[in-house]
């Protein structure tokens, strides 16, 4: 499990002083979240760059109310929302370059006791990937932030700019759909 933790005794604002090091530390998480949301590696890469460019421009206004990680996720969520709004007009965009469930599930680490268990786990991953792709944007965002990025409810609320109660409700709806789909293949 990956932990994004700031160096000890370093304040949140100081963490931004070495911007290059900060990018290196947080970039994998931002890219991963955007790739899981958009499913297009090129688009995710472009949006990751945009997220850090916006962060760079706004670095002087960062007061340290939230952690750098949460602040970056907030920028990434806004970039994602804008991108998906623009995507409606991109009728020429090819969906074929999107990451499909089968190719994703090949990356499942081999930790199952048997080949059969590994195959079942792979099927589950595929189903979750498919269902997550069909979720409304807000539900998908909180689902990915919670179960892929392992953010706390309060952190998700800060990153998405919504109340904790709303986050819980969206998370409940999202997980219900995922569980129902998994139950069908059980």
């Amino acid at each position, binding site marked *: 499990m990956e932990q994004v933790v700031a160096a000890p005794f370093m304040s949140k604002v100081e963490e931004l002083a070495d911007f290059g090091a900060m990018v290196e530390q947080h970039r994998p998480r931002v*890219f*991963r979240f955007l790739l899981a949301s958009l499913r297009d590696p090129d688009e995710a890469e472009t949006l990751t760059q945009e997220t850090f*460019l916006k962060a760079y421009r706004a670095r002087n206004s960062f007061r340290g109310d939230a952690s750098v990680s949460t602040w970056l996720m907030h920028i990434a969520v806004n970039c994602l929302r804008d991108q998906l709004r623009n995507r409606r007009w991109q009728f020429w965009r090819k969906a074929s370059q999107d990451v499909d469930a089968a190719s994703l599930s090949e990356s*499942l*680490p081999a930790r199952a006791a048997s080949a059969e268990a590994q195959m079942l786990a792979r099927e589950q*991953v595929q189903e979750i990937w498919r269902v997550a792709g069909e979720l409304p944007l807000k539900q998908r965002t909180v689902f990915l932030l919670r*179960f*892929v990025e392992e953010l706390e409810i309060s952190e998700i609320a800060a990153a998405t700019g919504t109340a904790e109660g709303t986050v*819980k409700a969206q998370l409940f709806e999202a997980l219900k759909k995922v569980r129902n789909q998994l139950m069908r293949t059980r």
Partner: protein
Amino acid sequence: MKQEHWKEQDVIKAVAAGKSWGQKKHSEECVACAAEERWLIDALTSFRETVHSYTAKYPVASFVPSSQRLQTGMWAARIAGAVLALLLLFALPAYRTRQQHARELREQQDAQLLQQIDDQVSSTVPQALEPLMNLASTSSASGQIKSNPTQESQ
């Protein structure tokens, strides 16, 4: 007192946002509910590990904000250059045509003025004195007639 098994929403709530004290106690005692919870958590863990493993394959692109800003500036300069070239391409011929028209008109006006001057210079008397000139010519003609007898008498 034996607690009831979890319903669907209890499992989802427990996995999504954590368990209450009562739920924790129940999952410790009830094997069936604990297994139900474990099954969902395992599926989500597999999903998380797969996404982490998949995205780790992508190379990390370097982020250099200053060069990007420079690139943006270069693009702006390129666009401005293209707009200027287009302006020159369309505006210059139009400007030239307009200048040529103005020159032709001026030449035409000059020619007309010169013609008028020529006309005025070539005439023996000014235009305003022409009626007087006509009168003078008429009277001189009659004078010539009258003078003839005088000449004859001399």
